């Protein structure tokens, strides 16, 4: 393998890698703003310029492919002076409103400023200001903070496949905005905020809710569709504040869609059924576990039962239910459900050219592997239904016969239910899901479930033993 020398260290590299990536393998960090490994290289921010022997000018590491024997100096006087200079230039017009900026704490500009910038500022000029337009429900824009890295423009053009972000005007007045000031159209808008190296584009949903340094991060998998994008859930005190993508080059690369990003919201929905509940008279009333389990059992007793299992449940839960239902309700049939119109993995197709799939649950493929059949209609003679649900699967309409729900439900889902035994959402349990390609991935517990919401195995234990 060819080798180059970075800061005196000999580093092997694969031809085609750029200097930033090669240096990273050697543990040398070259700072940058505009570069992003998932998008084209524009060499605009000039922060990554380094000294290369035999070249008179500094070379941008993002656009430089090392050659065998190349000698690179990332800590030379010339390199460091340029880094200081770029930091100073970027801050000439930056508002420095870090105290009220959501990006603060995870801001490239802030971090690089701390590491490579100067505490002293020479500029006394008035700062450039812009008037911001509304960019739609996902993204909050603050152009004053923008450093013109154009990552957002490239994300739209190259990843989201929609040319909606553009640069208008010129030079010092350049403004990054949407075409004709329209709202963002893409279903991947949240990524604009993720890749923005400053607080210029932030997520409206997360705005002013939490300082990022208080967030605890759990690596897990999105349950929004059958792709299973890798994500991190960010929480503090058992409250999820946001979802961010986690890089997995084989599944979702660096991105997630907005549906997956905001899917977590149902976990904290005020209408989520978080205590055992029993229908008394016409309404679903709060109850205690012993009574609710008894009521649920009574509802199904001696009847021909259909078991509906949401394809938003994990493999572990699926297997458990398969065994449990055949013993508990002799002669019952178990079906999986999840997305209206999709009853088998063969019907699960790409929804766009990027990530989204038409099956809107995480474990369709897995439940099918366990032997579940897709639900189409209730078999003849079924007298009662028990529904197990993770929180996302769309429950088929059942009319005229009693229904018991186990898992995560919203109050409005349970209008005709005889009893509800509250369970845990994907953020509150561990488990395995199988994505559309058959890839097994782990979901991890990020927060503790509300006190009365119990894991499936515990619920089934009570069902058998109470």
């Amino acid at each position: 393998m060819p080798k180059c020398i970075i800061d005196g260290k000999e580093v092997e590299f694969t031809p085609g890698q750029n200097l930033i990536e090669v240096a990273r393998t050697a543990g040398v960090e070259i700072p940058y703003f505009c570069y992003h490994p998932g998008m084209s290289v524009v060499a605009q921010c000039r922060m990554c310029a380094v000294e290369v022997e035999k070249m008179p000018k500094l070379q941008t590491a993002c656009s430089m492919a090392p050659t065998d024997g190349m000698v690179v100096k990332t800590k030379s006087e010339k390199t460091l002076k340029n880094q200081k200079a770029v930091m100073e230039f970027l801050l000439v017009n930056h508002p420095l409103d870090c105290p009220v900026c959501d990006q603060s704490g995870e801001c490239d500009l802030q971090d690089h400023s701390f590491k490579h910038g100067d505490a002293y500022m020479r500029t006394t000029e008035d700062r450039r200001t812009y008037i911001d337009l509304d960019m739609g429900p996902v993204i909050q824009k603050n152009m004053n903070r923008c450093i013109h890295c154009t990552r957002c423009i490239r994300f739209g053009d190259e990843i989201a496949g929609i040319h909606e972000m553009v640069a208008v005007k010129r030079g010092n007045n350049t403004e990054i905005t949407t075409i004709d000031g329209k709202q963002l159209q893409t279903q991947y808008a949240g990524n604009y905020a993720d890749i923005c190296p400053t607080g210029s584009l932030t997520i409206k949903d997360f705005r002013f809710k939490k300082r990022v340094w208080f967030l605890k991060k759990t690596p897990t998998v999105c349950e929004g569709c059958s792709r299973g994008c890798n994500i991190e859930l960010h929480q503090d005190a058992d409250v999820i504040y946001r979802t961010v993508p986690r890089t997995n080059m084989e599944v979702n690369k660096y991105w997630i869609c907005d549906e997956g990003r905001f899917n977590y919201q149902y976990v904290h929905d005020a209408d989520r059924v978080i205590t055992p509940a029993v229908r008394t008279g016409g309404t679903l009333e709060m109850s205690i576990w012993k009574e609710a389990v008894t009521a649920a059992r009574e509802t199904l007793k001696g009847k021909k039962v259909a078991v509906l299992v949401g394809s938003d449940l994990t493999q572990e839960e699926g297997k458990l239910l398969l065994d449990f239902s055949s013993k508990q309700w002799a002669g019952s049939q178990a079906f999986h459900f999840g997305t209206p119109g999709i009853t088998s993995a063969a019907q699960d197709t790409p929804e766009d050219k990027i990530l989204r799939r038409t099956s809107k649950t995480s474990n369709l493929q897995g439940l099918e592997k366990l032997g579940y059949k897709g639900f189409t209609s209730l078999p003849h003679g079924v007298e009662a239904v028990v529904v197990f649900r993770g929180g996302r699967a769309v429950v088929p309409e059942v009319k005229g016969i009693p229904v018991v729900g186990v898992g995560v439900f919203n109050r409005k889902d349970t209008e005709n239910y005889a009893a509800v035994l509250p369970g845990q959402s994907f953020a509150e349990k561990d488990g395995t899901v199988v994505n559309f390609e058959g890839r097994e991935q782990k979901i991890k517990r990020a927060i503790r479930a509300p006190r009365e919401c119990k894991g499936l195995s515990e619920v089934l234990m009570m069902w058998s033993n109470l």
Partner: protein
Amino acid sequence: MSETTLYIQHFNEESRPLDYYLSKMNGYVAAKKALSMQQDDIINEVKKSNLRGRGGAGFPTGMKWGFIPKQSTKPKYLVCNADESEPGTFKDRDIMRYTPHLLIEGMVIGGYAIGSSIGYIYIRGEYTREAKLLQAAIDEAYAKGYLGKNILGSGFNFDLTVHRGAGAYICGEETALLNSLEGKRGEPRVKPPFPAQSGAFAGPTIVNNVETLADVPFIINQGGEWFAKLGKLEKSGGTRLISISGHVKKPGVYELPAGGATIRQLIYDYCGGILNDRKLKAVIPGGSSAPVLTADEIDVIYDIEPLMKIGTMMGSAAIMVVSEDYCVVKLIKRITKFYAHESCGQCTPCREGCKWMEDILHRIEDGHGRDQDLTMLLDIADNINGKTLCALGDAAAGPVTSFVKKFRADFEAHIRGGKCPSA
């Protein structure tokens, strides 16, 4: 002043029609000759001629043509850079205005030499009249079979299109020009790849200045060696069209052999001296982006290498002369304002730095300068110079550095006295 000149004798309204070009200027004889030659022989002839790009960088044209990959299956393009956006430059305008067929013939030959059948002339948006004249000449050439299919029975096809710019200085930079030509934002591209590998519409592309291409028919007609000998210095062949403006008695376009005179001769012999016989204060020798020269530095041969040796450049061969009653601080402020205005805004040092320098210079000129401003200006200019994606950063920083260093007293007078000493 009796040297051979190629252009200047034809710079009048009568020489524009095709008839004049055919009868008085050996019109399209070179094209006929070239189309019967081997492509490599043409490139070799141009290499021998020591023709160097007339747009500013002075890169040897023959060598540039040689960079086109022969085996490429993509369409190749020949693009004429007629943006002529460097302040002080107006020589290409005269070529397009008076001898447009020279340019067309040069492009036919150049297109044939690099294997391109599509040519574009990217003309400065403000040159409305020239764009019309050029289009009329192209129509004439099409009508007579000098452009289009099977030119002069050779089997070679070449189509030529005039594309008007929209008024951006940066579109004179070749990759920004190509972006603009493709309908994108006029922003320079990251190099490499250079246009010869991947230029217009991702095909191999050569971008040449108007004068460079117009020189080509002379080279083919009379030979590369003859052309090389026109130049007085070793490395530069041919004649140079020089735009002289500012405080001289006879501003205008002059032609002289490359390296044929000093700046002093140009100002005092060719242009008749300084306006109102005042004293000379400064000379900007190569368009507004060239570092300035003082009155003591003008005994320098006006060509690429001698100017480079004294730390400035010939650029697009545009001399701007400044007399002693004009304020140099105001001048550099105006120049910097131009570059701040024309910065495309994509890379950091240029976008932020040019405007910052403008603000500081504005402050100094207004009499609100501070003692540390000059040191700061030099440092900001140094932080821009050589650190940007294209040469616009250098173009903005070089003049500021040279003005502050060479006319420091004038700046200090503004800062300390709070007003202009030359007013």
